[in-house]
């Protein structure tokens, strides 16, 4: 791959199950990620994805495309709109830097409210 190459988009439907199962799998027990009543009482529309999951999904999106040829060396995420159940999180990716052995991929995860995450992922040939 080289600078300017684009990753195929990935559309991930957000479900309550996805939000809860990933929150628990990342050992994040904050109530806003599994208890809808409490989440809404704080003014949130619903439960929402936790940050560790967003980072995990960004990693998965990149490694799904690149396979096992590369190691992930860093993930830098800027968070935007929350990802709520019944929305769709659509990832897109662009190679923004590349050397013989490394690449940087800019990943944007979009929900209906706007960008949920803008990330830069560093990878290196294994």
């Amino acid at each position, binding site marked *: 791959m080289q600078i300017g190459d684009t990753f195929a988009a990935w559309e991930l439907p957000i479900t309550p199950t*996805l939000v809860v*199962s*990933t929150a*628990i*799998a*990342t*050992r*994040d*027990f904050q109530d806003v990620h599994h208890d809808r009543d409490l989440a809404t009482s704080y*003014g949130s529309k619903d439960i929402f994805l936790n*940050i*560790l*999951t967003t*980072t*995990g*999904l*960004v*990693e*998965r999106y990149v*490694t*799904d495309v690149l*396979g*096992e040829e590369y*190691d*992930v*060396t*860093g*993930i*830098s*995420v*800027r*968070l935007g709109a929350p990802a709520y159940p019944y929305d769709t999180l659509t990832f897109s990716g662009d190679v923004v830097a590349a050397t013989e052995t490394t690449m940087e991929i800019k990943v944007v995860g979009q929900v209906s409210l706007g960008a949920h995450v803008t990330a830069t992922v*560093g990878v290196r040939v294994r």
Partner: protein
Amino acid sequence: MSDIDLREAVMAKALELQVMGETAPRYARDQVNQPMINNWVEAMGDSLSRYTQGEAPPAMAQVWTMGGLNPQRDPNDPLHSMMEFLTEQGFTAVLGTNCEQTYERYLRVGEQLSVTTVLDSVVGPKMTGVGEGYFVTTKSVWRVEDEVVATMLFRVLKYRPKQADANAVDPTKVLRPAINRDTEFFWEGTRQGELRLQQCGSCHELRHPPGPACPSCGEFDRTFVVSSGVGRLFSFVVHRYPAVPGKQLPLLLGLIELDEGVRMVAELVGMGPEDVEIDMPVQVAWQRIDDSLTLPVFERRS
């Protein structure tokens, strides 16, 4: 406390915590292990085979040292202390804004992790879309024995939530455009995410705002093209007073010169007053008000 005194108190607290330096290492409850990796890849839907062969996903680094269901707070944890202090000052709400992780290598099943944290910076107060607050950044380092295996800069906004009261803006209250058969195509387009520009079917002249005739050749042969939505800022206004129905103040308003050569007035979004300048490259985005109205808005084009 005055605003200036408050800021000084926050900065003094930040300095006190920064001087304390790194916390003592806190150890992960469990060694890196396959069942937790399996739970993680199952939930994420990740199918990389290396995660079944003794390697852990890099993005799990922080998972190993999470506090769990009943976290024991380290009284010396700088993030926790800073948060508590800001809460006492009325900055009650918290929002994660940035997380930058680096991974030195992939972790392997059986390794025992520890984490240390230091307060990196406290910046503010800043007025943000959700309210006024401070950006608090901590740096965490994960080690296996003395070997650094991963790092993280984690930034949160600790803020005073804006009052959700009569000042709250209801976007559906925007003034509705008058529409007739000469202009309906434009608003039909915005509902579909198309920025339509009237084009004369006879002489091909583009025109905005539209009208029934072509001022260039006089024909009534109207068609339209869909604009690239790309252009530059010809002029702009920062509207601060009075209130405008359906709009948050300050309101940024731009006169955009589209690449096709016609101009258009629209709200500028995703930027503050200090970010706007004439000739700035912009591109269209859409603000859906309801089923009947979608407004074109413009954001900075990078």
